[in-house]
């Protein structure tokens, strides 16, 4: 890894090799002797300086950068952000001292921020791991004593979480115009020293040694012939893990996705408790359902306001006088602060901690001694997916151009429940059929979502307008701009309804039935 800002972006990259020998050479003289011996007769070696770097490996909680093949490192001493990818090389930006976590707007404008804004989206960048590197630099010289490549021996250590040595590495930095020489150096070192090619970066080593993992769902395995209560309890434990993993981020208001992900975990839990709760010990589902309903309710106001704030610029751009919406945005920010205060109080309450404790204990006792043997996991999946699909089709068939909005909402809810059910049983599904069913339902849910969101947003706008009028400070221009938005939401809801009835067959017709029938492997 090269941290020098003067390196040309298009210059040939460095080639890393990892030490695979039994014992790492203990000192600089030993390393110099090793390199000198291997290169002797081909190149001369000149010892250079020592570099020390403290690195912070950054990513979002769900590792968006890693998934996009990007490595982001903050070099503390230099206040430097370096972003690298195997395809597009490395870009760097001096950002000064920054405190993490930070959202994208908290990073000064520059090339790294520009490159990050897409992959990172609204998520905050967090320190995933911290490490320290000590690099011993050497120049490789040709017969004219001209540097044709540079070697850097890196000794690294993980500083957090935990402390451990990282595998030693050697970077062979190619210089422009001397690629052949650098290739020869790589060949000689690989053949003459216990150094092996490495595909991963330093950050891979740091993440691997630290044993850190991203927040994500579906970390449970499932076999077709397992007891039904065992697989349901294990899935619910995974959702509980997701839920709890997001609590600190919500309380710290790190970014808005923590609350979103927490709510998804709650929704999945509620759906599965409702659809499969009968396989759990008697009375457990009935006892826990109201608790999760409460949790869903306490998180709703804050999330609704987050959605408004995230789209406020887009909304402003859609009205004739965007500035008129500024007081509205201010009102939303104030409401959001209040809503988050209430939410944090709920997440710190005894009721919430008791909910998590009791739920975990109950689920773990099911996992320890599964007792429901009437159906296997595969039989349960097949039976329940077909059952809810029948319900979805029945509800959808009743919806026409004049159906009340409540019926459309009920259909959306059932569709969501079906999707969560299918996603839970993913390990038991035929991959192709699974993709088709998810795709069918995603399209349908998008339309239903647009219908409901438009209605909810229009209703909320009316409520906000009333609150602002009651507050006595709002101007007519702001109310008019909000009225413009209301009109757009109403139109969008009408469009969604037209699309829903027009495409009904595409989502729930014979083809969709075929996909569902083939879904669960037997």
């Amino acid at each position, binding site marked *: 890894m090269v941290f020098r800002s003067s390196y040309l972006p298009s210059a040939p990259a460095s080639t890393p090799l990892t030490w695979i020998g039994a014992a790492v050479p203990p000192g600089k003289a030993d390393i110099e002797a090793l390199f000198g011996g291997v290169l002797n007769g081909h190149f001369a070696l000149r010892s250079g300086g020592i570099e020390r770097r403290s690195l912070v490996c950054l990513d979002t909680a769900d590792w968006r950068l890693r998934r996009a093949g990007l490595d982001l490192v903050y070099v503390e001493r230099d206040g430097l952000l370096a972003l690298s990818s195997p395809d597009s090389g490395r870009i760097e930006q001096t950002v000064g001292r920054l405190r993490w976590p930070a959202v994208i707007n908290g990073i000064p404008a520059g090339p790294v921020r520009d490159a990050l804004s897409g992959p990172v989206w609204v998520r905050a960048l967090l320190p995933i791991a911290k490490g320290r590197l000590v690099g011993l630099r050497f120049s490789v010289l040709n017969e004219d*004593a*001209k*540097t044709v490549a540079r070697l850097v021996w890196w000794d690294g250590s993980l500083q957090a979480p935990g402390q451990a040595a990282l595998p030693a590495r050697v970077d062979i930095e190619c210089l422009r115009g001397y690629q052949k020489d650098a290739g020869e150096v790589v060949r000689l070192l690989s053949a003459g020293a216990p150094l092996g090619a490495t595909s991963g970066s330093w950050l891979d080593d740091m993440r691997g040694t630290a044993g850190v993992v991203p927040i994500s769902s579906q970390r449970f395995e499932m076999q077709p012939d397992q007891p039904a209560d065992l697989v349901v309890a294990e899935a619910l434990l995974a959702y509980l893990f997701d839920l709890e993993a997001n609590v600190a981020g919500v309380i710290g208001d790190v970014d808005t996705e923590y609350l979103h992900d927490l709510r998804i975990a709650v929704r999945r839990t509620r759906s599965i408790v409702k659809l499969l709760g009968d396989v759990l010990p008697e009375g457990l589902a009935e006892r826990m359902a109201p608790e999760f309903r409460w949790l869903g309710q306490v998180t709703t106001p804050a999330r609704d306001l987050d959605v408004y704030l995230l789209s406020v610029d887009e909304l402003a751009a859609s009205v004739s006088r965007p500035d008129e919406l500024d007081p509205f945005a201010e009102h939303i920010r104030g409401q959001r602060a209040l809503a988050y205060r209430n939410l944090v109080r709920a997440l710190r309450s005894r009721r919430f901690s008791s909910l998590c404790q009791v739920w975990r204990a109950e689920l773990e006792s099911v996992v320890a001694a599964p007792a429901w043997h009437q159906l296997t996991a595969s039989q349960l999946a097949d039976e329940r997916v077909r059952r809810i699909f029948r319900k979805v089709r029945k509800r959808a068939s009743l919806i026409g151009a004049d159906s009340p909005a409540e019926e459309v909402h009920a259909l959306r809810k059932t569709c969501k429940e079906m999707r969560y059910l299918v996603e839970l049983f993913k390990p038991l599904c035929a991959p192709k059929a699974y993709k088709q069913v998810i795709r069918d339902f995603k399209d349908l849910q998008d339309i239903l979502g647009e219908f409901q969101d438009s209605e909810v947003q229009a209703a909320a706008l009316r409520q906000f307008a009333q609150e602002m009028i009651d507050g006595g400070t709002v101007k007519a221009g702001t109310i008019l701009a909000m009225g413009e938005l209301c009109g757009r939401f109403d139109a969008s809801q009408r469009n969604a309804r037209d699309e829903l009835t027009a495409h009904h067959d595409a989502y729930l017709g014979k083809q969709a039935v075929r996909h569902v029938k083939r879904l669960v492997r037997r």
Partner: protein
Amino acid sequence: MRENRRTLLWDLDPQGAASYLFRIRPRVKGGSPKLVQQSRPLLDAVKATDFEGLDLLPADFTYRHMDIDLNERPRPERTLRRLLQPLEDEYDLVVLDTPPSMSLVSENVLNASDVVLVPLIPTVLSVRTFEQLSGFVAELDGRVPVIRGFFSMVDRRRRLHREILANLPLQHAQVSSIAVPAASNVEQMAVRRAPVTAFAPRSPAALAYLELWAEISDLLATRSSAAE
């Protein structure tokens, strides 16, 4: 380099002194004809020096015929400018090191440059050459570079050197008062094959070069802000 400017030095002198100093072989595959005809991209011939951020396009003996190669191109006096354009994203600064002559290559350099640095040995003949060059630049069409003379190989024990040093900057605003001494450290560059600022950074010659760079840097900044 001190300011992290990505810099390319093109050693246009077929004698290849700059290439020699940076320990880079004065050889370019295809030579001047291929570069001038653009059948070989300039960047392919570039070599990294031992100094990070500084690359060199080496000299080649075929450069002695570069005038002829340039003359075969459309609008020959603007050919180098066209050749350098693709490097704009790659480098912040390009330094063209030319042999001391008035030729089509020199005319190309004048057309391609923002600032032309002219080393002046404080003698009557070199003052005369500087005046000829200034007159020639003043008659150029379109974009005209800033000419800046500076004194080199100065020996203050000589009266003529002292007189020219004192008077010429007063007579010509284009001449800087910066003077690089005729010091053994400067001659040592060829022996050590390294810039004086690398091996004797506190020597009077090195300090004079740094002072000169500060002046050029200001000139470039002024030129750049005027262009905006």
